[in-house]
């Protein structure tokens, strides 16, 4: 039996479990984070708050010709502000992406995970990894359309942003939202955040950013971290997939290969059985010689 999470939150579903979680509470608000990129000043206070609250290990920063603190997410860095210099209308613009788990409604990681209860989706929309049940196979890494989960070579488990689930359970907002000095990160019900995001998009469009969009990709059922993207026509420059799906890329191919493999091996067994029934054993004729 998989170990259940220690919190009291209602579970919507767990990885590799065909029966629904036995939660009694099945209704409640879904929460979401809204990241308004147009309001971000690139201070990286959210990165620090994330490290502090979640007590994640310190990793030295590196100057590689960017304002970015680290090159990539890691098992100890669940949130990374990615800075990309882009030319927009002859001017240089800084595209900043708050890179962390988007908490998809249809999580590719959860769908790919073979270990019962290693990935848990709560009724409130949070997708969390339960390392007690993780077997370290990294299928979630293959399954994520946003390249978020990171494997720790020493513990041989996978880690990512848990939306400060312990804070949320206690009625608080996630640490990154709490600390943001410009309110670029908002926290509330999914409904409210979608409404707020649409208002921000309207505001940006009125200011001349005609391509501003709310990033809440339907291919993964929507996400619980959404972005207000000022230059929605250049999603790739933000490192945001235009149309991510839970079955994207490798997972879809692996799914096909799995079906192919299961069919091939099943048919192989069947063929061997039928061959035996049809032709029987071939033994030497003892008396012939």
């Amino acid at each position, binding site marked *: 039996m998989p170990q259940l999470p220690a919190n009291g939150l209602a579970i919507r579903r767990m*990885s*590799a479990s065909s029966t629904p979680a036995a939660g009694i509470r099945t209704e409640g608000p879904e929460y979401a984070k809204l990241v308004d990129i147009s309001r971000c000043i690139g201070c990286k206070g959210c990165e620090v708050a994330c490290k502090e609250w979640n007590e994640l290990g310190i990793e030295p920063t590196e100057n590689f010709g960017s304002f970015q603190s680290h090159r990539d997410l890691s098992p100890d860095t669940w949130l990374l502000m990615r800075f990309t210099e882009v030319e927009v209308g002859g001017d240089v613009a800084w595209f900043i992406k708050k890179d962390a788990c988007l908490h998809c409604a249809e999580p590719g990681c959860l769908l790919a995970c073979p270990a*019962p209860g290693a990935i848990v989706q709560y009724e409130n929309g949070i997708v969390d990894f339960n390392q007690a049940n993780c077997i370290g196979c990294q299928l979630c*890494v293959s399954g994520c359309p946003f*390249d978020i989960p990171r494997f720790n070579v020493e513990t041989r488990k996978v880690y990512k942003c848990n939306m400060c689930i312990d804070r949320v359970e206690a009625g608080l907002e996630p640490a990154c939202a709490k600390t943001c000095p410009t309110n670029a990160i908002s926290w509330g019900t999914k409904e409210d955040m979608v409404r707020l995001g649409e208002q921000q998009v309207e505001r940006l469009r009125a200011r001349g950013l005609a391509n501003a969009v709310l990033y809440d990709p339907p291919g993964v059922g929507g996400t619980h971290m959404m972005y207000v993207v000022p230059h929605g026509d250049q999603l790739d420059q933000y490192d945001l997939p235009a149309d991510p799906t839970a079955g994207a890329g490798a997972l879809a191919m*692996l799914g096909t290969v799995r079906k192919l493999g299961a069919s091939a091996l099943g048919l192989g067994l069947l063929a061997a059985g039928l061959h035996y029934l049809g032709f029987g054993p*071939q033994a030497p*004729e003892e008396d012939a010689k």
Partner: protein
Amino acid sequence: MSASGLGEIRRFTFVERVVHWVVGLSFLLLLLTGLAFSHPRLYWLTVLAGGGATARILHPWMGVAFTLGGVAMFFLWLRDMAIDAEDRAWLRAIRHYALHQKDKVPAAGKYNAGQKMFFWTMTALGIAYVVSGVPMWMPGGVMGIGPFYGGVVNAMRLVHYLATIGGGLFLIVHVYLGTVAYPGTIGAMLHGRVTRAWAKLHHARWETEEGSK
């Protein structure tokens, strides 16, 4: 089986038999645990190797056993595995072989062409398992190569899965032919001997060669 009165011939040495079972048993466990990881509905197979995390830890180590055994096996049997003109004739008659029409199948030597192809295919698949398996086992990199996170691991997983389909099918055929389809065969891998009658039926040229000794 010595009831035929023709006696027995030794087919495999002690070392060959040990190496065969190291490779065979490790491959079987690798296949079952690998299938367990490949799909949630097959996860229950992990109990065969001590449960999820244990199976996951054991899988690559069983791969090490498979690899070492496979390398030994390759060099033990390489000498006998060259495909010659008689093998090509055998392959042209493979349909008759499958239909148990032995009189229409050219006499085989110690190994028939099907067994030789099994050898070469498993060699290729074995290389594929190791090359694609190591990045999944050590995604942080190994011996200065890597790291392999993300795209490389995904691609390698795909290779690993495809190779598994091939290996799984070969295992089914191999076990079927070696046990129920051709009685008297499995003894070759248990105590090392087969009967003269068995050898005449399945490996007539080899039986003749052995008879002259």
